[in-house]
């Protein structure tokens, strides 16, 4: 899901390109770069990291420029592998999305002809091939190059001596923005909308030459043709939300697929880690925020399935704690893999001599270089600041790990392991069932949106879920919320219960269910409105003011389902309050500061 932007016209290319790339950041990326044709040379700047890390003021004024964001799926993200690529002489620059199937034979040939490659990417062959084919006519060289390569691609190229953008696409999106005395090109329309709403969609095999005031397009048979100009009627933000009003809701709805992708293969054949090399006498989870809550759920999972004693530490606290003489396996969780406190904690754990394992969603992110082993959640890019599908997939990974560790430690029978795996396999569908009930869950939030304080209570494995529910509500609805173990309410917080403090109680049929019924009774007696989320039960129906019952699931696997309900509760509460759900105030998606 890389992003491409190109510009030709009188504006500062640096500004147009960087803003355009930012509009494509929903596609996910790990490195970014721009090249500008300026005063008969190609200026190049590319970096692993954020678009914001590019220094806009260093980009010279020029006639045209191209930009790219890369989301590595194979191959590591690095400065070298980032786009654009330039040829040996520094006269041509290209960016590319897709895969060049026949790159290795072309590369060999080019190396024999003396070309020097600076990266391991397939994309780089394009620029050297262009250089090889260039004989004073850039368009001719470009056409020749495109006929040589097979695969899927969207290519954008500039030459220092010619005032034009050259574009071609095959099975990879590319759209031209038709401006007034300026033209643009991008892999998706949101990058263009700031400048124009008139676009031309290229079709497979098309080649286009774009100048400030002209657009020529040739089809795959090299016939000069017209492609219709269309007017885009939606605004940039709507484009990638797939009919959902916010990325957060879209991502909540992507959870069945995210779980499916994360368990795929790992259920039938778990071979990515050699567990025998670890000290499995104790496990320590280290993380921040929502990831810490995933680790906290993990503590209960590991203790139950693999019979391993576990502790949980916040990254920012662990760093400054005193080393003890135990050497637990340290599992670090970070969605982005860039959370500074967690990276520092990984270094500290290594220093103390622990085995370290990171669970993250971003390939080759910083944390992966600090630890012994990495497991990737397969959640896909998460844009909403409030973590949803990455929490879910982190917890799914912990179930998978716990089962494998249980087998490794001889505390789990094969039969029982298969039963746990079957439960995991059924999770995507059960989450889907909850999502189909979204209207019912939305109704629960009417009273919540009017409250100033809300309590979340749970017991056992759902206690961390109560914490996570409260965090999510604070984050996006800006309502003060607190999560407690249900038994702790009477040790203080009871003093705050009134008819104006709704309580969301998680009640599943594990060994704490009877106690939970008692707690809910006590809360109701203080006139606090009670919303129950949990297993279907007649008694609960009577006690609670409102309820939502999750699909039948063993208590050990209930946290994921309960949490999806709480995500929707937070979302709809924030929605009723008209909050900026995808970008809550004062918060950032990856916390790369201490």
């Amino acid at each position, binding site marked *: 899901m890389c992003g491409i932007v190109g510009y030709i016209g009188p504006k500062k290319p640096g500004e147009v390109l960087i803003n355009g790339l930012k509009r494509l950041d929903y596609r996910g990326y790990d490195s970014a770069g721009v090249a500008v044709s300026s005063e008969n040379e190609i200026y190049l700047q590319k970096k692993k990291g954020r678009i914001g890390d590019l220094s806009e003021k260093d980009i010279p004024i020029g006639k045209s420029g191209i930009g790219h964001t890369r989301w590595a799926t194979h191959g590591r993200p690095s400065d070298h592998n980032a786009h654009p690529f330039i040829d040996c002489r520094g006269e041509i620059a290209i960016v590319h999305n897709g895969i060049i199937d026949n790159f290795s034979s072309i590369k060999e040939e080019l190396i024999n002809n003396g070309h020097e490659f600076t990266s391991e990417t397939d994309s780089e062959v394009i620029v050297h091939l262009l250089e090889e084919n260039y004989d004073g006519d850039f368009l001719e060289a470009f056409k020749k190059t495109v006929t040589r390569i097979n695969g899927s691609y969207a290519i954008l190229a500039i030459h220092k001596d010619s005032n034009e953008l050259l574009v071609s696409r095959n*099975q990879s*999106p590319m759209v031209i923005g038709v401006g007034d005395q300026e033209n643009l090109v991008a892999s*998706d329309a949101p990058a263009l909308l700031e400048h124009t709403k008139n676009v031309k*969609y290229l*079709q*497979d095999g098309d080649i286009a030459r774009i100048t400030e005031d002209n657009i020529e397009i040739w089809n795959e048979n090299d016939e000069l043709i017209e492609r219709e100009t269309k007017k885009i009627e939606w605004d940039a933000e709507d*484009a*990638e939300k*797939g*009919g*959902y009003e916010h990325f957060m809701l*879209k991502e909540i*709805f*992507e959870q069945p697929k995210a779980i*499916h992708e994360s*368990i*795929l*293969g*790992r*259920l*039938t*054949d778990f071979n990515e880690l050699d567990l025998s090399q670890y000290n499995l006498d104790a496990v320590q989870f280290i993380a921040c925020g929502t990831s810490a809550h995933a680790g906290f759920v993990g503590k209960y999972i590991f203790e139950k399935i693999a019979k391993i004693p576990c502790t949980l530490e916040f990254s920012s606290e662990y760093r400054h704690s005193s080393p003890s003489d135990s050497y637990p396996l340290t599992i670090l969780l970070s969605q982005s893999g860039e959370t500074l406190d967690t990276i520092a904690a990984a270094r500290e754990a290594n220093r103390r001599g622990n085995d370290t394992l990171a669970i993250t969603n971003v390939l080759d992110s910083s944390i992966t270089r600090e630890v012994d082993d990495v497991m990737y959640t397969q959640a896909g890019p998460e844009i909403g600041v409030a973590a949803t599908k990455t929490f879910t997939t982190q917890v799914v990974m912990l179930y998978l790990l716990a089962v494998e560790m249980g087998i490794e430690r001889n505390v789990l029978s094969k039969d029982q392991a298969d039963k746990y*795996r*079957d439960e995991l*396999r*059924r999770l*995507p*569908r*059960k989450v*889907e*069932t909850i999502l*189909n009930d979204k209207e019912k869950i939305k109704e629960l939030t009417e009273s919540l949106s009017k409250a100033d304080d809300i309590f979340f209570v749970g017991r056992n494995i759902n206690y961390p879920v109560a914490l996570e529910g409260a965090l999510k509500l604070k984050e996006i609805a800006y309502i003060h919320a607190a999560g407690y173990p249900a038994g702790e309410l009477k040790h203080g917080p009871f003093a705050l219960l009134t008819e104006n403090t709704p309580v969301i109680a998680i009640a599943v049929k594990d060994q704490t269910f009877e106690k939970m019924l008692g707690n809910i009774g006590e809360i109701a007696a203080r006139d606090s409105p009670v919303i129950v989320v949990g297993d279907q039960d007649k008694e609960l129906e009577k006690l609670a003011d409102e309820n939502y019952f999750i*699909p*039948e699931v063993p208590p050990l696997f209930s946290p994921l389902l309960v949490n999806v309900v709480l995500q929707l509760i937070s979302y709809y509460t924030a929605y009723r309050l008209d909050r900026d759900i995808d970008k809550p105030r004062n918060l950032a998606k990856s916390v790369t500061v201490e």
Partner: protein
Amino acid sequence: MKAVILAAGEGTRLRPFTATEPKVMIPVANKPILEYVVDAIVKNGIKDIIMVVGYKRQKIMSYFGNGDDFGANIDYVVQKNQPPTGGTAHALYQTKNKIDEEFIVFPGDNVISEDTVSDLLENMEEYTMLITRSETPSKYGVVTLKKGGKNIENLIEKPERSPSHLISTGIYSFSPDIFDHIEQVMGEGYYDIPSAIEKVRERNEIKAIKTQGDWIDAVYPWDLLHVNGAALKEINKKYNGLIGENVMIKGNVKIGRGTRIRGGTFIEGPTIIGEGCDIGPNVCITSSSSIGDNAKIGPFTSIENSLVMGGVAIGSNSSIVNSVIGDGVKIKNNFSTYSDDKNIETDGTLHKVQDIGAMIAEDTKIGSGVTVEAGVIVGKGCEIKSGSTIRENIDSGSRVM
């Protein structure tokens, strides 16, 4: 040229299988019906697609997105305030602002093939209706042709006695003037495309093109088996996943990533098995069957000519014949279905159905030793206790003790 796909309806006659997704998103051979339509159009070089969506539209929009993954540019129009029945013209009318030249229209709920579309494109005129031959014409709009067989003479909706075996596929080419005709008939209280066509015929000829390509329709739940079987014809042999010892696979069978086929299992194509499934040991799956993602099929169970959707779990020693099993259905051991010719009653009409087993809608739970008789429809989210025999249709959410 643009293609419009009408995908706003629920498909009420397919209830209870449309409880949480529109008919167009029901999977056959593990792909939503609508995807066959999009693929057929794109393969003919048409990329600009406008989808008219309505009922559970997010299921459609989040699946297809902007069309990139399907080689298309997909634009969506929402049909609000759907007329109670037969609102195809009203749905089409929603695209009026996006169309300024001749265009083609497809219903989103029939499985069609590449040549269905090319038959239309090669010979179409300003107003064209694609027609096909049907053995059961009275379920559809029956057409008669004028002398010479080139143009439509008459279109009769669901006649009791059919004057011909030719029916409308609901696939058309139109000039943008069609919107004026639609405006006119809507003013008279009609909201369907056939009524608009009546208006067109007052002034223009409507060319009839008979397609040899696929056009397969599911009206009722039992029709899904037929559609599934037809879609499976296109399946190619491809094995991903882990295949155990002594597994025998014959014919075109496609097995998805991360699926485990345990020892002694027999699979006969055309059959598709999705991703992340756990099948066997000693399971027998015969043609033409589809098994969705993350399904679990226990030992010694046999599945024959059935459509089993995603997340289904079926225990051991069960027999699934000519049946439709919806998403997330959980069945314990020793479950039986059997197949027979049946008269099935829905909405007061009696349908003669051949060789039909059980039809069980999503999230229903079935205990051990249950038998569901031929032709019985079990609703969504039911719970059936062990040992029961189900002889009649059961409403969604029922409990059978």
